[in-house]
């Protein structure tokens, strides 16, 4: 009787908390003790307002282990040299098992440590000296170690090597920081992974490699001919793959041994003892052999992700875990009943926490662009199977439920919506959004499958396997579809297109001639001439980025080398090539990320209307005002802000210009070719580049001043400039084709949570989603936190640690974001559903 009362009380208070939308407390009360412990015990690795949390230190063991072996193997082919070094790390890096955890594997030697990847670019490596607080104690000793490492790696990193062959003019312009960012090397990259291949087990992959080697060695005994010569290079590559695969199996077995030792000699709790023995059994089994149950499949998966990040800084996490693990869940929970739903949820929740825990050091500028998180880890959920049928399963639901229980800001989910998704699954998506997680973002699957076929010619069955390669771009997870390397340096600061069109290719902020000389706009006779200048600047900006990236791409196997990734890439194993070698059959899936894109349409519309159509101002006056950064021209500036047409209001005047710009870019996207001779479409999105570039983009005709935050991204209208409500935004965005006019288009929508409560709220959201789908949009993400909460969080961050908001392509804890970004989020129009 007494127990029953207590239960009722508990149930009531959860309801009350839900009514107050205190979701963190709801999660605390409803999750298992294990998840509660694991969630509270995990170190936060994302930078808070650009700074790491107190206690976070970089790991020096990893680079030291790596470098000592690397130096020992000097003179070997790069992939082999690296394989030895990685194997040395995997054999010697300290490992640990967190109490109550069931999934093993961590990058670094202690849970508070983040990885400092040193093989990318020595200039960035040296920034570590300016990083307060994250150098391990004793600091002096650590600084000496770092200096020794930097002395060795200076000039030897991937970008250092690339810089020597880059066109110097391109290099200087790129290094100005004004036009794009990133490093054209797989030292900072991300890769699609094909788990249907990987799950054969590493022993099977090793057998396949062995077979290839034997076959090749036999061929080499044959008649001498030019055909034989390339085979000599393949052998050391295969050997490198063997070395890392074997080391990976040993790494897993170290966990098995530790778990068994703990169980047999230290653990007194019989339940935990049993768990530890199961962990030992699991780590003995995977990744050597195929997984047999959910714990093994999750463990295999996590080992692969961790091992890939021992090799390099993988900044995104392309994955479709519901599809990969769904069959094992079904077997364990539904068929064999080895696991209860609650036990499965513990594993799924921990999978999210173990991922959240991964920390990799990033320089300040990158941390500002990716506030609060380590990387843009967007996991893909839902969608269809290769035959087009609904792929949602119980694991889709389990991930959504687990996400609400553990409430981590990374990974986030992108949901592949399609008309056949069942209502119960859609409700789970909605619950996550309503609980203020900020995810899943909703992706229009039929549109994106068609888009993936259109741009690269992926067969439709392969296109249907797509995952988010980073925040937004779909990539098939098939033998020839997988993208081993995506370089963030194909990220364009698009606002520069309009800025350079106004300034004859000159950059008034960094003070140098950047783009081509397209003429003084004061001499242009009409808008068409102006638009022509914009087109030329757009082409130049894309060309310089794509050129650099293409070069980095083909040189990557020579300058960097990825033995582990190659070993899990079917086409690399088959051909004895580096996974990043574009000659091994990769179909191509490249895109240019377009930061600060909408400023172009709004600025062009203002110029067209005020200067050319209405002749309200002369180009002279406009240039004068822009050159003065609008200072002294406030009345005129307000006219440009308030009275010029703005994107997102269902106004054809500016919307037509947006469509025209996109079509010019899409034409050019087919002229730019990647090393696989495929296209380079544009993908407008911002992450938080709108803040990063605020001080690098000068005054613009949309009324923006140097230093003002740029629009928050993708094809979202400027904050407060969408005056006609959410339907008008959707309709503007529906005016171009989301299949042929670009790669994908990010749209942010702030929703007011009070209005979406209860069953009515769900029905309204569904109606919104139907309208979105009817208009053929490919993406939308929702921010469901109200202004009052955000303001309160600014004042009292301690109390609002759990508030998660959407920032462009990913979600972050609000209090971790810089004040400027916070203000920007609040300022975004609340699309008041009510």
């Amino acid at each position, binding site marked *: 009787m007494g127990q029953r009362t207590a239960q009722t009380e508990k149930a009531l208070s959860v309801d009350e908390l839900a009514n107050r939308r205190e979701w963190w407390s709801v999660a605390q009360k409803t999750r298992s003790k294990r998840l509660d412990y694991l969630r509270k015990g995990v170190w936060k690795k994302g930078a808070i307002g650009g700074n790491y949390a107190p206690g976070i230190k970089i790991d020096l063991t990893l680079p030291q282990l790596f470098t000592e072996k690397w130096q020992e193997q000097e003179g070997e082919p790069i992939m082999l040299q690296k394989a030895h070094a990685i194997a040395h790390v995997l054999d010697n890096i300290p490992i640990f098992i967190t109490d109550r955890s069931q999934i093993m594997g961590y990058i670094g030697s202690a849970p508070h440590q983040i990885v400092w990847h040193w093989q990318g670019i020595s200039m960035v490596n040296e920034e570590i000296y300016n990083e307060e607080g994250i150098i391990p104690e004793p600091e002096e000793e650590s600084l000496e170690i770092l200096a020794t490492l930097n002395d060795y790696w200076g000039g030897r990193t991937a970008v250092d090597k690339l810089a020597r062959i880059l066109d110097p003019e391109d290099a200087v312009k790129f290094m100005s920081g004004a036009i794009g960012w990133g490093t054209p090397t797989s030292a900072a990259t991300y890769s699609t992974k094909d788990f249907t291949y990987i799950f054969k087990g590493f022993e099977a992959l090793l057998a396949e490699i062995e077979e290839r080697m034997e076959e090749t060695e036999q061929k080499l005994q044959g008649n001498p001919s030019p055909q034989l010569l390339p085979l000599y290079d393949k052998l050391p590559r295969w050997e490198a793959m063997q070395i890392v695969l074997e080391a990976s199996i040993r790494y897993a077995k170290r966990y098995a041994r530790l778990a068994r030792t703990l169980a047999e000699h230290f653990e007194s709790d019989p339940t935990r003892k049993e768990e530890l023995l199961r962990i030992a059994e699991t780590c003995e089994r995977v990744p050597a052999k195929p997984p047999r149950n959910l714990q093994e499949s999750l463990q295999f998966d996590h080992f692969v992700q961790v091992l890939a990040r021992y090799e390099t800084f993988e900044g995104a996490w392309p994955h479709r875990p519901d599809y990969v693990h769904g069959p094992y869940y079904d077997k364990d929970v539904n068929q064999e009943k080895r696991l209860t739903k609650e036990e499965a949820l513990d594993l799924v929740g921990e999978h999210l926490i173990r991922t959240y825990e991964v920390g990799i050091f990033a320089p300040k500028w990158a941390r500002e662009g990716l506030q609060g998180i380590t990387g843009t880890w967007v996991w893909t959920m839902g969608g269809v199977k290769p035959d087009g049928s609904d792929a949602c399963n119980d694991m889709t639901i389990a991930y959504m439920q687990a996400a609400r229980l553990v409430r981590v800001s990374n990974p986030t989910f992108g949901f592949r919506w399609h008309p056949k998704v069942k209502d119960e699954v859609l409700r789970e998506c909605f619950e996550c959004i309503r609980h203020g997680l900020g995810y899943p973002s909703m992706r229009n699957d039929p549109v994106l499958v068609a888009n993936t076929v259109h741009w690269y010619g992926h067969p439709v069955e392969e296109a249907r396997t797509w995952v988010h390669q980073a925040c937004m771009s779909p990539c098939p997870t098939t033998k020839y579809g997988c993208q081993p390397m995506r370089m963030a340096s194909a990220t364009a600061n698009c606002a520069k297109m309009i800025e350079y069109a106004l300034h004859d290719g000159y950059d008034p902020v960094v003070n140098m001639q950047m783009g081509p000389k397209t003429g003084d706009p004061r001499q242009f006779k009409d808008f068409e001439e102006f638009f022509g200048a914009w087109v030329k600047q757009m082409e130049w900006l894309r060309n310089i980025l794509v050129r650099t990236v293409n070069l980095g791409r083909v040189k990557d196997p020579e300058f960097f080398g990825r033995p582990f990734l190659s070993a899990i890439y079917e086409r690399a194993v088959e051909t004895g090539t580096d996974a990043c070698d574009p000659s091994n059959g990769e179909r191509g899936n490249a895109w240019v990320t377009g930061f600060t894109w909408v400023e172009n349409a709004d600025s062009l519309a203002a110029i067209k209307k005020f200067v050319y159509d209405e002749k309200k101002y002369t180009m002279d006056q406009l240039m004068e005002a822009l050159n003065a950064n609008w200072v002294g021209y406030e009345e005129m500036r*307000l006219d440009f802000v308030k009275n010029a047409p703005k994107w997102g209001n269902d106004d054809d005047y500016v919307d037509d210009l947006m469509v025209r710009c996109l079509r010019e870019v899409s034409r050019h996207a087919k002229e730019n070719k990647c090393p696989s001779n495929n296209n380079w479409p544009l993908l407008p999105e911002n992450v938080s580049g709108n803040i990063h570039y605020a001080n690098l983009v000068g005054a613009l005709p949309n009324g923006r001043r140097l230093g003002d935050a740029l629009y928050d991204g993708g094809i979202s209208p400027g904050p407060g400039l969408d005056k006609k*409500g959410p339907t008008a935004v959707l309709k503007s965005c529906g005016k171009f084709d989301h299949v042929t006019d670009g790669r994908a288009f990010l749209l942010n929508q702030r929703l007011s949570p009070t209005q979406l409560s209860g069953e009515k709220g769900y029905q309204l959201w569904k109606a919104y989603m139907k309208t979105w789908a009817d208009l053929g949009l490919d993406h939308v993400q929702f921010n469901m936190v109200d202004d009052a909460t955000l303001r309160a969080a600014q004042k009292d961050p301690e109390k609002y640690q759990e508030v998660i908001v959407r920032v462009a392509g990913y979600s972050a804890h609000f209090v971790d974001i810089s004040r400027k970004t916070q203000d920007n989020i609040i300022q975004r129009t609340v699309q008041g559903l009510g």
Partner: protein
Amino acid sequence: MEQHPVFGVVNDIQRMCTCDGPGFRTVVFLKGCYLDCRWCHNPEGKRRFPEVIPYVGNCEGCGECLTVCPTGAVTVDDGLGPRIDRGLCSTCLQCVKACKYDALVLWGRIMLAEQVVAEVELDKMIHVNSGGGVTISGGEPMAQPDFVLAIMAACKARGISTALDTCGHAPWEDLKRVLEYTDLVMFDIKQMDGHKHREYSGVGNELILENAKRIASLGVPIRFRIPIIPGSNDSTRNWESAARFIECLGDAVLGVDLLPYHPFAGGKYRAFGMDYPYPGGEGLADDDVAPVIDLFLKHVPEVTVGG
């Protein structure tokens, strides 16, 4: 009959509203009201004509408005922002144009019915998908019956569902014409006691209650919107009386939406530099509303809080 262009005064058009009828609504707020409720939440909606209303907090004291006003209607008190003498103001809008800080704002736009309909039609997709439509609200929409009629008729013709949010104080002839194009009436009942109604809202409630009966007898679906105003209508006797009245109206009644008093309008009054005549303290707690819900549930099929 010859078609004349019909125009009226619109205060605001809000989109994707979820509180004023089913689905996503586009709510057209008209200007002008027959009543004068002390707790009124939309003081800018009372007068029938466009007017300049100061936002005192935005004023930077630059004095531009004083320079441009041809009639001397604007005065600026130190720290209190601009004030407008309505007797002198000719609504020439010179001050609104001159003000860089949005401290003088024009409320009420004269619009053609077809312009309003065009704005509403922008949202048609989401109306249809969500089972929503247009809601004409106020002020009191029936202060501009021809305008409402023209908007409603045109919306209906375009396949957009219509709702009328009214206090019910309007000539039956006008209401009857509008009802022909109305899918749903949201009808306010503020007070069952006629004397108190006159005391707090400026007019008696006889016409209002009579109209409610007539609407119900025509069979037009009707929801009653009942504000809970502490110190004015918040008595069991009043609720009993209202519930019984509604119960007698028959099948046309879909339900009752209780609208608990909240003090948010205080900020608006302050911004306009007006005194809030009904600063009724904090908003109502859930516990205060619960017994009222229970009471109404005994008499009507559905009761919501907040609509």
